[in-house]
């Protein structure tokens, strides 16, 4: 009888250890605990482009996390993304003309919302909308703009000699110049 008891106890300890490990994994290494606990209030902001912002992303001021992105929806009337943010109640003195920008943490990091305080005397409260926003930086658009401005400048340089030089011609002259 004593032997069965020992077996039962060690089996029980093994099973408990297993569940403890599972609990550790679910609570400690996943991003489940990123919700704002305790009292909070909601504010919204409308963005043209949210990039890869996801619910659960941080809302930070001066690098300090003050809240989390609660939900992201699409407003069909204005064709913008509506981001609902949940901000902890102890950060209740954020001016209502503050601006919200979608930023990227580091080169490989995820996106978050950075709030920069405005100068208003009135503070954001539950249900308010942040009017001043800055969209996520989309790398493709940035490269397109860069290429476009590059092309434009080169066309300008070449159009001094022959009027209406196309970009193909421009490239050719450039290589000839390089040869000489």
């Amino acid at each position: 009888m004593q032997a069965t008891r020992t077996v039962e106890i060690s089996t029980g300890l093994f099973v408990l250890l297993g569940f403890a490990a599972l609990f550790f994994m679910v609570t400690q290494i996943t991003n489940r605990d990123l919700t704002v606990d305790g009292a909070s209030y909601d504010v919204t902001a409308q963005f043209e482009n949210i990039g890869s912002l996801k619910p659960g992303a941080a809302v930070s001021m001066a690098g300090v996390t003050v809240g989390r992105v609660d939900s992201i929806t699409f407003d069909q009337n204005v064709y913008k993304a509506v981001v609902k943010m949940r901000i902890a109640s102890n950060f209740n003195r954020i001016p209502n003309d503050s601006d919200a920008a979608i930023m990227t943490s580091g080169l490989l990091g995820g996106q978050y919302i950075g709030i920069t305080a405005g100068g208003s005397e009135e503070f954001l409260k539950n249900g308010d909308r942040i009017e001043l926003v800055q969209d996520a930086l989309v790398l493709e658009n940035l490269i397109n703009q860069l290429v476009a401005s590059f092309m434009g400048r080169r066309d300008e340089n070449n159009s001094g000699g022959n009027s209406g030089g196309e970009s193909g011609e421009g490239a050719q002259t450039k290589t000839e110049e390089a040869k000489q």
Partner: protein
Amino acid sequence: MKLLRELTGNAFDFAGTVGGVTLFLGRLLGQIPRALLRPSLIVAQVHNTGALSLVIIMTCALFVGAVLGLLGYDTLLRFGSEDALGTVGALGLVKELGPVVTALLYAGRAGTALASELGLMRATDQLTAMEMMAVDPMRRVVAPRFLGGLIAMPLLTVIFIAIGIFGVQLVGVQNFGVDSASFWSQMRASVELNDVAEGVIKGCVFGFACNLIAVYEGYTAHPTAEGVGRATTRTVVISAVLTLMLDYMITAVML
């Protein structure tokens, strides 16, 4: 000609084994409801396959995690992003290394024990004796072992992962001085709940495969000393190959 005959013979052998395992599984599943009526037998097997494998699983997890920390740190340092060590370690362990290494160790530690125990029961006519006493050995001996292993394997997997992450942390944070806060926060930011689910699902599937192979090989072993030895060897080999093949399939499906 002889080669051809050998090849076709091997092919038929293989088909026969697959068919045998499938039929065996059918009989086993049929006995499971009645085996569940005697939970004390299952608890004893959870103890045999799980609790007794705990030491080897935990030791190996610590070292696998430590190696992952060492190599991960060395590689990430070249890109100046050693803070991502938490992400690398946790995802590597949760999704891949945890379930696979646990299954391989499990096949070596518990699978062989199951196969040789059943094989020896067969060789010493204990299974036949049970049949003579109108006790179905499938229900009394095989099903509890299978179920016990089925419970133990996912638990061993999550324990392996947790200890492995501790090992990564030990080398990365304690030894190399990766910032502890960014280690954990980057890990949390990138590991989703369904990554953990993938690890647990893999643990369950591998547990199913390894235990099925072990009890099948043991139950159908030739009743000789050599037969038991061969059954034990086959258990490890087939379990390992099957685990890695299933791993590829599950990863492809869940990616």
